[in-house]
């Protein structure tokens, strides 16, 4: 376990050198999501998709992409924004 913790420290130090380059990439290209799930529009950019996007393909359509079942059901709405609009 001690060896593993030592290994993780070494990896973290190595990764800390790559993180600024990754952040530069995100900043320059204005990226918003990880390229993990490329199977559907709403899974490629989960932060940019609506909670109801999987069901938009046709009325009452069922989710059929496996990644859709991995993603958590919706994200909490920005309460500040909603409150200010209502006011």
């Amino acid at each position, binding site marked *: *376990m001690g060896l*593993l913790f030592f*290994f*993780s420290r070494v*990896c*973290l130090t190595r*990764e800390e050198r*790559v*993180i600024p*380059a*990754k*952040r*530069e*990439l*995100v*900043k*320059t*290209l*204005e*990226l*918003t*999501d*990880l*390229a*993990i*799930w*490329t*199977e*559907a*529009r709403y*899974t*490629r950019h*989960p*932060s*940019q*998709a*609506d909670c*109801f996007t999987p069901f*938009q393909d046709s009325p009452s359509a069922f989710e059929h*992409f*496996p*990644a859709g*079942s*991995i*993603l*958590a059901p*919706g*994200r*909490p709405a*920005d309460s*500040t*924004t909603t409150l*200010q*609009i209502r006011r």
Partner: protein
Amino acid sequence: MRRLKILEYALSSLLRRKYKNLSLVIVYALTISILASILFLTHALKQEAEAVFSDAPNLIVQKLFAGRHDLISTDDIHLIRKIPGVGDVHPRYWGYYFDALSQSNYTFMGIREGLPGLKLVEGQMPAEEGECTIGRGVARAQFTGLGDQLVLIDSRNKSVKFRIVGIFDAASNLLSNDLVLMTRKGIQKFFDFPSNRATDIVVEVYNPEEISTVAAKIRKMLPGTRPIAKDEIFRTYDSVFNWRSGMMLTLFSAALFAFSILAWDKATGISGAEKNEIGILKAVGWDTADILELKFWEGIVISFTALLGGLTAAFVHVFFFNAPLLTPVLKGWSVLFPTFRLTPYIDLYQVFVIALLTVAPYIACTVIPSWKAAVTDPEMVMRS
């Protein structure tokens, strides 16, 4: 001294039944390694997202039409720019492309001309209409490389050739695996964007505290739009890799269920030999408290050995071998799945939770049946 003697007896007792205990430790460690692998993998991915998206756009404004994402008018840029506290406002051009040949989806992005080269790009950024920079996944799917040509079918069903002037480094696979970068003019022409339309608008807000206020003003000013703040990116990845997400629930509950069966099997009774041993110990003068302490130490030795073994196996599985048993679950139907090496971010809180979830119930399951046997008359125990 007495405690040490009991511990010594517990170890020798475990060694007497070494094959049975070894098989128990292996099954126990495997269950823990499944639980720990899921926690290590999701935590590492969440940390990666948090680390790299801290420089993501402050605010992105999307247009909605009939409840669906639509192209936004670039005229809205002038309106947004007038909001106090707003800095640079510019359009983003991006879209998806399905490549029938490799049956995979690519993400196309149009970038501003004259962007400087990036550390994680081998070669250069596209500077002319017929140039592109691609991710490793695209290069692999198309069997192409730096200096080769990428042939794509545009929105008019005509084949278009792009010269590959750059390839993203493997270290950025998690961000760029399916990316095809081209110039803005290139992407506008390829997808036939209407002249005053863009995919969405990026808004820079000087003061991060004002992002939600600016978002509210944009919604009021342009009711058909949906502003997405940077916070929402973090919230999304937090909920995707949360314990309540589908992946965690499915795998985690299966592993916990397996562990429950193991603990239940242990709790429903102890073997005749063990009962006999307890009876003999009672007959030679051991107290019930001594027997409970003995069983407690036996439980501690087994569960901590299994915990250490399980955590080590999970660490090796996730960070040395890149979680080959879990990636098929993550992958789904994605043809272009990035090969990535995860940074071993370990949350000690999660390790304590695993320890608490597995060690405590196991020790309880060991001690309770032994206590039942220990409080019974030694003769009765030995006879049964």
